[in-house]
């Protein structure tokens, strides 16, 4: 951060580096959940599957999904395999996933 700089002064440095990001728009929203294919992606964390199962059950009480498809990542801490993401994209309209705990 620039500060008042009388005299010669000392040079000081910011060690953080900048964060650069290319703006990506959010995907399209849906108008109605009935008749859609829901993909559920679990990260296999403790209790994560249980949470997703129960959330699914609550949603299915109110919403008439065309299909509900369940997937698991290789590891809770890594990004999903591109092949798995491709499969999810091909076979689903909306997605529910669990990560941080």
């Amino acid at each position, binding site marked *: 951060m620039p500060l008042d700089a009388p005299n010669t002064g000392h040079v000081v440095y910011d060690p953080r580096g900048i*964060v650069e*990001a*290319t*703006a*990506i*728009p*959010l*995907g*399209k*929203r*849906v*108008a109605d*959940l009935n008749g859609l294919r829901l*993909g559920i*992606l679990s990260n296999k*964390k*403790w*209790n*994560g599957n*249980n*949470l*997703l199962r*129960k*959330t699914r*059950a*609550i*949603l299915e009480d109110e*919403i008439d999904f065309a299909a509900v498809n369940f997937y698991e*990542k290789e590891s809770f801490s890594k*990004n*999903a395999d591109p092949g798995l*993401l491709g499969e*999810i*994209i091909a076979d*689903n*309209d*909306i*997605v*529910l*996933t*669990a*990560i*941080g*705990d």
Partner: protein
Amino acid sequence: MHDAVSLEGQDRATAIIVTTEFLHEAEVQRDALGMAELEPVVITHPLSTLSDEEIGHRAAEAAEQAKKIWLGKA
């Protein structure tokens, strides 16, 4: 968040569940990845130590928010 950004990038509206303790990280990630409008589903921390009944309560929290995110009402 990387997975969610990839899915959203292909027009698959995605509801990502995080606990309150990890919300800040999720926001930093989505900003660094460029998708600042991506809102997560936030449930009370923790999850891993909860009983089956308590998980049920978290699921109720999650379901309500997920619907809003998919419909664009978050």
